[in-house]
């Protein structure tokens, strides 16, 4: 069903004024979901102190590629101590996450800090003039435009996506695993319970469990004796009734049974995570940034928790749902279109059912939205959600509320509240709503809410 049909059907069923407005806004939106191309950085106009001898004269740049994660541990330990000593923490980890298309699963981790001082706020000049100014040279009349540079289309997560901007040269690559560990340790996110069915993985341990005749590492005396008896019985060396004269027993080399070092499959619980993101038109701007940042953090954290044994599926939805292949597309697709949460939930249910995923995995579903839903009563959403709760280990819904709305009053939240599911399935379903303007700390706090026991 495309959004026009859906719209007509909804109209027929009757809409409130606010809903009408929201829907109309999203109907008018004619954007598409393409992944944006990275844009060029604007030229710094008045950066007097940027150029330096080493880079200008000798073309020497510091690429801090070799970041030592051990140092990070020490830094984080130190940061914990700060709290004990009554000072605020200083190291930040969050926002530098940036999965690239080429290095899937890789995230950029930089411990960063700021040395706070009393300094002049240079942003103030810009605010004052509404534009920035700086130096220039060459031809041109006053007022003449001498060059243009495209601005990246408004809205999407990439802006805060991490590591963009001036610091980009100094990014250090580490993987999501490290970030997950940092999150677990630094933010003391809870550990996951081992639960659900187990499934063999392509991971092995080595143990002296297999038996082998003729050679091996350790002689299995009991099994060897048994084999010796069997052989001698067959040879007729033993009389079934009388005493056993052990001196008469023949021992063939193949009767000796050894334990031998062998490869064993290891069993471990495994996670499958569905990331579901609302990429409808209303999600433009900060709401999307917040959601993708949180999802990257959750992704990294689970990767650590499950020692890399975490599978992920990425689902985007407007009025229809769509599965995308990699984090990159998930992270970067533009917002557009209307909103129907049920479509996404239905898709998750279908995927799980089709491959019987619930038998083999701990399934986690994280859904990020701004709380808008054309399905105001949740008539379609709630049944899908119930199905979902029948197999999921945890469903975490984050609502990034727009600053123009009232808190706790979004459609998704109100129909969830009404359904009573939040109480009935407390173990399985969590809802967290925050303002779209929240920072990294609140986002991490949000993760804790979504996944805590």
């Amino acid at each position, binding site marked *: 069903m495309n959004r026009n049909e859906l719209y007509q059907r909804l109209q027929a069923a009757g809409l409130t004024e606010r809903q009408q407005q929201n829907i109309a806004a999203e109907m008018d939106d004619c954007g598409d979901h393409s992944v944006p191309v990275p844009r060029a950085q604007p030229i710094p106009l008045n950066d007097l102190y940027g150029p330096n001898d080493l880079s200008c004269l000798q073309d020497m740049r510091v690429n801090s590629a070799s970041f030592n994660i051990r140092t990070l541990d020490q830094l984080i330990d130190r940061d914990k101590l700060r709290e004990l000593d009554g000072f605020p923490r200083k190291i930040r980890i969050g926002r530098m996450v940036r999965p690239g298309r080429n290095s899937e699963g890789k995230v950029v981790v930089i411990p*960063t800090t*700021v040395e706070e001082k009393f300094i002049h706020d240079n942003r103030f000049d810009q605010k004052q003039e509404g534009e920035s100014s700086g130096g220039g040279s060459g031809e041109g009349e006053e007022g003449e435009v001498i060059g243009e540079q495209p601005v990246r289309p408004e809205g999407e997560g990439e802006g805060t996506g991490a590591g963009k901007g001036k610091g980009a040269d100094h990014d250090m690559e580490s993987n999501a695993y490290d970030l997950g560990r940092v999150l677990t340790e630094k933010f003391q996110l809870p550990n996951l319970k081992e639960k659900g069915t187990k499934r063999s993985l392509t991971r092995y341990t080595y143990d002296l469990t297999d038996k082998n005749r003729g050679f091996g590492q350790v002689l299995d005396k009991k099994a060897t004796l048994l084999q010796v008896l069997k052989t001698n019985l067959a040879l007729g060396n033993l009389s079934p009734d009388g005493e056993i004269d052990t001196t008469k027993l023949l021992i063939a080399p193949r009767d000796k049974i050894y334990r031998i070092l062998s490869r064993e499959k290891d069993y471990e619980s495994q996670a499958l995570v569905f990331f579901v993101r609302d990429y409808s038109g209303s999600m433009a701007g900060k709401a999307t940034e917040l959601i993708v940042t949180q999802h990257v953090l959750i992704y990294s954290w689970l990767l650590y928790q499950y020692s890399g044994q975490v599978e992920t599926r990425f689902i985007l939805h407007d009025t229809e749902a769509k599965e995308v292949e990699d984090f990159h597309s998930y992270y970067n697709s533009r917002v557009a279109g209307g909103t129907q949460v049920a479509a996404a939930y239905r898709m998750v249910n279908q995927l799980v059912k089709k491959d019987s995923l619930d038998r083999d995995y701990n399934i986690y579903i994280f859904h990020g939205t701004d709380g808008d839903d054309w399905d105001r009563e949740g008539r379609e959403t709630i049944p899908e959600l119930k199905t979902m709760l029948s197999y999921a280990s945890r469903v975490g819904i984050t609502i990034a509320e727009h600053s123009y709305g009232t808190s706790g009053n979004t459609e998704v939240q109100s129909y969830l509240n009404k359904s009573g599911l939040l109480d009935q399935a407390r173990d399985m379903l969590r809802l967290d709503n925050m303002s779209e303007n929240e920072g990294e700390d609140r986002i991490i706090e949000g993760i804790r809410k979504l996944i805590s026991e």
Partner: protein
Amino acid sequence: MELISQQTKAIMEGCKERARAVGLRFEDETLEYVVTNRDMLELTPKVMIPTLYDYWVHDVEVLREKGKYELYPSNPYETVINTRPAISFYNDNNPDWLNVMIFYHVLAHIDFFQNNLYFRHTWDYDLAGQALADKRLIARLRSEHGRWVDYVIEFARGIDNLVDFHGELSTLHRGKKDCSARLDFFFDVFLQQQRPVSTSEYMKEVEAYNLACRDFGDLGEQSFFTEMVRKYPEFEAAFEKHQGGKKQKKSDLLQFLIDHSPMLNSEENLWMKSVLQVVRSTSIYFQPQIRTKIMNEGWASYWHETLFMQDDRIRGHEISFARVNASVTAMPRVGLNPYALGMRLFYFIEEAANRGCYTHDYRRLRDMELKRHYDKKLGKGREYIFDVRENYSDFTFLNSFVDQDFVDHNQLFVAGKRLNEERMTWQYYVKSRHADDYQQMLFDSLYHPPKIVIDEAKSQEGVLYLNHNIEGKPLVQEYIANTMLGIEFLWGGTVCLETSEAEVNTEDKEEVTPEMISWSRVRYQMKERKLERTVL
């Protein structure tokens, strides 16, 4: 780090001879090191001073976007550091001709460090050695006091941009010819206010002083006062009273804390003072570097260009040189390049001085045509720029020499950047070609820490009251809390900061006029690690 090869060192020595021949002055000894990427990783957080004290923030990527250079007075990626001997760093695969160019650049920097008067306080000791001593001190303290050393460093660094660099300099530049305090008091206060005498009598005393100086040389003042005390018996008492009542020397926040903080001066915390002292002196050491960025790079570029072209050893590499040199010293179409700007200013000044444009006669001319064709062929250009390199800093340099001629000559303009919403592009345009605007734009881009002074009248009952003299820009608000937390720790009591904050009432309008900005005076109070904001 390894020293450069003997062969390359020989090239450097050749450069020194040629640089001296044109008038650059620097100490004989220099050290040149080849650095690898790994070395660079360690050196850059330590502002290229290999012996700087260890501090955990050096291991972290520091977010510099906000305020960037405002936070750091030093220039982190300099190829030469102001030590004795001066140390410079090189890539190990530079071809010889490139090294020649860099050597000249480096030598001009060294000349600048060792002759520009804003570096006066760095002339008497070797930073590398001092830093090593500081590093050992801090390591020792750390073994005794653990992480508290790092807190003290952190909090001290939080206010290390408020050091009174100019005050420190002025004590050094107090010339010997100046009169003693006693003499100043005698002629300026005593004879004029406390015991007024007639003009002729006053002149007679001056004459007596001059006579005494002539007859007794260095002992002149002493003998003069022996005479005067006999004449005005009350003088000594009056002078002493005057000295006693004189205000103490004004000190910056760090120095004030060292001298007066009850917390730091308690027996068990005395060690913290030495940490503060290290942070303060390190900061003061770096201050002139960022305050002479344009001049320093301009001077170095001027000389590497001039000397390279004259050097007979590098024939055949002119084109390679031209390419590198252009990338360093070309004026960007939009943006600022301190190398290009400084170098052009020096060329401009030299040419103008050659024509005699910095003379009284020239300034008295009213006719533009006469001015344009004024040429006394004085040939004093070189001499003049050497004088500029000795006596100016970026601000005075720009303030004195950026004029309409310079701006026109180099086709400079203030570039603006605005958003074109229809086309969704950033548009760069020529905003102004007026020298005043250009100059103002440069001033706005210069390093300038806020002026925050201790308000003694309001510092009562153990409260430290700081006053921010607003200069058209508010402070970065997010940083206030943690900075004040540090000051509270170092002071050991409540700390207040009075500052101004601006609110812009845009009312959905694009353009912001000054009338739409309303300033209000606010007071932040940090008490027991809790920050409170009050609008006054």
